[in-house]
């Protein structure tokens, strides 16, 4: 097997890695502040304000009605949970298999996980009717002796998501401690004091490295089953009902596969932005886009297979309710959206079979965004075409998102961007110490 080059533009020196990464933290231009102000502005105007209005008025502000009691909020929740899936999972799997190409991209991939999970958790809060009582879904001891219902798939969700959120935040933080120490050593003043606290007084003794390595591998092993379980559990919200189109045994693998699929596409998009705007061309190169592209092709094929199976099982059941629902999904009002999803998620990714597409960042950016548009539509279609075609024909309905829902959906992307923009100025977006592990140790003392 031919060893692939990790670095497109030659191997950097140890010193240079430090400088390149810390520069991205310290040098903040007006462009960054303008971008941050824009995303914060969009978040407030498109997300916070409609949400506050909805809390004041009631969920009726959204377009949901009696049959379609779930709508865009829930489909967005699933989309963001899905987007969160690849980062930590990929990072953990590649850590265990000791793949060197992971080292320069994993930090931002994990950050993506963390922030999508936060956005997803926010969508749960947007979704519920009485936000002010949402703490009842946690097992908090209370004088009434009331407990949450552990049979409820929503309850599983609460447990799974909070566990995953905790585990992935610890995972990303733990991996960053030596880098915080590196930033501390390079900075002065207030920043130095902040990073002294963040780095837990890391000194780089061999005992510390040993403990970190052990703990990190432990968490990598812990996170993998968690990641798989979280989206399976999210799928059970649907699959445990008896609604045609949601009551599918294939839903758990379907959702996990779709989640990793959209998450990997999201990683490609984020990597493009890091290269383009933070100058990490040297560290994120052809090898990464090539491998991620191959992963995307494999996932798109699994995804397509599961989609065909989903239609097949519906048709094969012969139940009139299922057939009616399939007709609505394939030829009803949302049919264009369905076929758009098939085009973007099943056919467009096949272009990546060509090396010329896979190694071209611009083409990969377009494909990755198209995949995520497709996946967003997929989640929307699951909710909006199943619920209006339930079992009693008298209750057939229709769902279309209201302006508030569309605005909150747009705002959620701005919220994610805001969190990510803050992240790249606090965390070293490329892992300093792990990139150095891939360098030639003989060049350690070299100065640039």
């Amino acid at each position, binding site marked *: 097997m031919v060893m692939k080059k990790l670095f497109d533009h030659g191997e950097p020196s140890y010193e240079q890695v430090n400088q390149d990464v810390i520069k991205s933290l310290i040098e903040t231009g007006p462009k960054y502040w303008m971008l941050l102000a824009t995303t914060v502005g969009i978040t407030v105007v498109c997300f916070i304000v409609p949400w506050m209005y909805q809390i004041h008025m009631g969920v009726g502000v959204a377009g949901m009605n009696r049959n379609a009691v779930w709508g865009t909020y829930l489909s967005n929740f699933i989309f963001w949970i899905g987007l969160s899936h690849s980062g930590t999972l990929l990072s953990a799997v590649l850590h265990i298999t000791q793949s060197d190409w992971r080292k320069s991209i994993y930090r931002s991939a994990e950050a993506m996980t963390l922030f999508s999970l936060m956005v997803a958790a926010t969508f749960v809060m947007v979704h519920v*009717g009485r*936000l002010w009582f949402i703490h009842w879904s946690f097992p908090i001891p209370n004088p009434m002796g009331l407990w*949450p219902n552990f049979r409820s798939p929503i309850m599983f969700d609460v447990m799974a998501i909070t566990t995953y959120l905790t585990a992935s935040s610890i995972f990303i933080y733990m991996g960053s401690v030596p880098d915080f120490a590196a930033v501390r050593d390079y900075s002065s003043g207030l920043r130095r004091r902040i990073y002294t606290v963040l780095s837990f007084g890391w000194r780089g003794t061999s005992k510390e490295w040993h403990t970190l390595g052990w703990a990190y591998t432990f968490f990598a092993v812990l996170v993998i089953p968690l990641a798989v379980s979280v989206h399976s559990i999210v799928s059970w919200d649907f699959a445990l*009902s008896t609604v045609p189109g949601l009551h599918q045994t294939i839903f758990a693998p379907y959702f996990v596969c779709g989640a990793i699929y959209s998450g990997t596409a999201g990683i490609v998009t984020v990597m493009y932005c890091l290269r383009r705007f933070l100058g990490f061309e040297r560290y994120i190169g052809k090898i990464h886009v090539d491998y991620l592209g191959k992963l995307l092709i494999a996932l798109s094929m699994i995804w397509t297979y599961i989609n065909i199976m989903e239609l097949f099982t519906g048709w094969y059941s012969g139940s009139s309710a299922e057939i009616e629902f399939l007709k609505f999904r394939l030829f009803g009002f949302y049919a264009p959206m369905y076929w758009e999803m098939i085009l973007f998620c099943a056919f467009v990714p096949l272009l990546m079979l060509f090396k010329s597409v896979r190694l071209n960042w611009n083409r990969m950016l377009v494909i990755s965004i198209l995949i995520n548009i497709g996946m967003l539509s997929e989640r929307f279609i699951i909710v909006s075409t199943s619920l209006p075609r*339930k079992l009693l024909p008298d209750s057939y309905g229709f769902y279309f998102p209201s302006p508030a829902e569309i605005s909150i959906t747009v705002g959620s992307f701005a919220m994610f961007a805001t969190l990510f923009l803050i992240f790249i100025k606090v965390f070293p977006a490329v892992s300093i110490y792990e990139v150095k592990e891939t360098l030639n140790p003989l060049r350690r003392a070299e100065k640039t």
Partner: protein
Amino acid sequence: MSVLDTIRKYREAGYYKEFDYHWGMTVDLDRCTGCEACVVACQAENNLPIVGESSFAQRREIKWMRIERYWEGEYPNAKLNFIPMFCQQCDEAPCETACPVFATYHNQDGLNTQIYNRCIGTRTCAVYCPYEVRYFNWFTYTWDEPLERQLNPDVSVREKGVMEKCTFCIQRIRQAKDLAKDDDRRKVRDGEVTPACAQSCPTEALVFGDLNDPESRVSKMANDPRGYQVLEEQNTSPSVVYLQKVHGDEEAI
């Protein structure tokens, strides 16, 4: 009996059979004329809000009792069938497992009850319900002066973000039990309690009573050969039995 057996006993649907009541209803479709008197009675009894024209057009009406209409055949030989649809008080209700906070649960009378104060509004129960009989308060609905004076003091008024549903007029059942207790009787006699819908039905298509009592009117009706349960294949074991409409040669009559 081992501990496991004790637990298994409670896993069986209808464990309340050893309790005093199993409230149930029969709906005789042959008698139903689709007059919707039950719908209005329910509205008045249970403080159901009037959602207004635009909300109604958005399918956000709140009617715990509704008459579903199904057309059969083409004009001029069209026939109209009515099915009154309300909470079936399933013994194995899908909605009960779904609620994360136990806002909906099965009581020992076989009723599927909803605790409005506990509901946080995830709406999962409405998705899981195959009968579509759970209604959500999309806004806080108010009653214009002087309409608020006709509100039933025995029933709470629900706020925004709360799911609500038929409970066979649980306030009337409660009252009947209290009266029976005052009379030094252990059980409510058949016919002493009637939900608003059954009370107002001019053709007596709706019959309410205790299915645990083999002598009650509803038990006898439920054993009618015309009896069937809506969406039986969902295995929800509803407490409501529908008596099929008999299609005969109408001209011969």
